[in-house]
């Protein structure tokens, strides 16, 4: 035993071993925070998801009952499918719009890009709650600016608030609008990193702007596209405040997303165990998304 212990302490070179204390001191604060607010909740969350804990008092282990009930719960299914639908609409829209804007901003032909860039970025500074309020003000059924113009042009007032699909669409537009600034910044940095010589060579060979975009820009910024899609998917899966201030998950409960569902079961009905089970399903989805995107990304890069 003593021999082995001395072996271990002797094995790393001396220079390195003198520097173990300093880095540990430096990361100590974040290690403690990580353990307290990440590891601990993850562990007790997993434990509670197998119990009928209500937040206070005693609890019993109920095995897989929570998960069993969850998959029989139509409200959970609705929230899950609505969340996935929201992500499927939001991620591509935000991707396309941000990429378009980034390209226009980088183009040398456009004038006034520095002012325009600030205009595109300001929505990102607004809080999700204010974004919701702002779009509610624009798309109000009886008072909104959009319906005012629709009626002016001879149309009927569009039920932006009372039609479930239309109100989801408004949130998709609002969120894409608000998140453009950030995705755009990432795209601008990536596009600027593409060597200019590629474009020069392509234009000498007679490639037009579209051809250049699809054959040079898009493949060159693939890693950034991957990050934008990943971050936006995570953001879409955890969306809550925009919905709450825009239509409160309505009309009715038709646009209750997963986080809202977890919030309501866990904190308004006090079913912590059940909410923890729902949280774990959301966590598994996010992990699956991350893994699938990693695989796809690797395959695209290897090709």
């Amino acid at each position, binding site marked *: 035993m003593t021999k082995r212990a001395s072996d271990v302490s002797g094995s790393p070179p001396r220079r390195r071993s003198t520097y173990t204390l300093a880095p540990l001191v430096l990361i100590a604060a974040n290690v403690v925070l990580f353990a307290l607010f990440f590891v601990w909740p993850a562990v007790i969350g997993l434990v509670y998801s197998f119990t009928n804990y209500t937040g206070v008092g005693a609890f019993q282990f109920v095995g897989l009952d929570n998960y069993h009930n969850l998959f029989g719960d139509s409200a959970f299914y609705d929230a899950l499918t609505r969340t996935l639908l929201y992500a499927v609409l939001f991620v591509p829209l935000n991707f396309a719009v941000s990429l378009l804007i980034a390209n226009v901003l980088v183009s040398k032909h456009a004038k006034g890009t520095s002012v325009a860039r600030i205009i595109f*970025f*300001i*929505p990102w500074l607004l809080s999700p709650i204010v974004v919701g309020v702002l779009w509610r003000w624009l798309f109000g059924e009886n008072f909104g600016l959009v319906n005012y113009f629709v009626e002016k042009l001879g149309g009927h007032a569009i039920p932006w608030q009372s039609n479930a699909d239309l109100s989801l669409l408004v949130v998709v537009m609002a969120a894409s609008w608000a998140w453009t600034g950030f995705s755009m910044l990432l795209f601008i940095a990536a596009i600027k990193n593409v060597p200019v010589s590629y474009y020069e060579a392509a234009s000498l060979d007679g490639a037009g702007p579209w051809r250049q975009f699809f054959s040079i820009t898009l493949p060159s910024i693939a890693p950034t596209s991957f990050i934008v899609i990943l971050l936006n998917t995570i953001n879409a899966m955890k969306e809550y405040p925009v919905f709450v201030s825009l239509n409160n998950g309505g009309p009715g409960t038709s646009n209750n997303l997963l986080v809202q569902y977890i919030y309501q079961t866990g904190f308004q009905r006090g079913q912590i165990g059940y909410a923890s089970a729902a*949280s774990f399903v959301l966590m598994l989805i996010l992990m699956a998304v991350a893994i699938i995107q990693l695989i796809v990304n690797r395959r695209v890069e290897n090709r």
Partner: protein
Amino acid sequence: MTTTDTPRRIDADPGRPVSKKRSRGASSGGLRRAVPATTLLWILACLYGLPVLWFILSSFKPAGDLFSYPLTMVPHHPTLSGYLTAWRSANFSQYFINTTLVCVITTILTVGASCCTGYALAKYDNKWLKAFFICILATTMLPGEVMLAPEFLVVRNLGLYNSFAGVILPAVLTATGCFMFRQFFLTVPDELVEAARIDGARELSIFLRIMVPLSRPIMLTLAILSFQWRWNDYIWPLLMLNDPDKFTVQIGIQSIVGAQNINWSVLLGASVISMIPLIVIFLVFQRYVMGADINAGLKD
């Protein structure tokens, strides 16, 4: 080094005069390209700017004019009454002070903790640090919203429920911040650290005296980002804070939206007030956000 540099310069230089000559020769061609690009840019900019402009202009309308048809872009009788009512009513000024306090403290702690962690991850090498780096990576995949209920219980068990500490502490560790500093310190040459070590400086004083001052621009960038995140946070403060005297601005706005009959005049005023600090900070420190390679933090 110089030999590889010079040919590039020669290569690059003739390109410019040629293009200048060309553009002078075919200035109409340049214009033909500039017009559609500029038009597209400004149509998009209007689409993005108009909602905010309409919102801000509406907030200057008196409550009675808000819904009077025909709607007008510019208020006929501009007034600050919405703002004044919002500021005076429902503790809004208290919310504002609370949010500022929470944001400033969290931002200072985030910058400090991220700077230390980023430096350790960049300049030291051992298996514990590598393991911790992967742990931090994992936090980006699993945002706090995923573990709402258990995280709430942890903070409650720590006795931090209904206190600002309960809002601040869980938000201090951010992966983006650690990555930004790690990426920055990787670009600082190791020789600098070695030289200081040879001069007999201690590890922590190398960090505090040499590295911290070097990283000032990154600190500012992260401070702005962190301030934005915390100012706009909604769900976590909502869960943590029970006492209306401790509410943050976002909770205050949402409580106006959640009312049975929305008082739009007050709501517009309150929302615009809540936007002001971030927009001012952004306009002042614009280049630290726009110029920053935020990408670096997320790419690794």
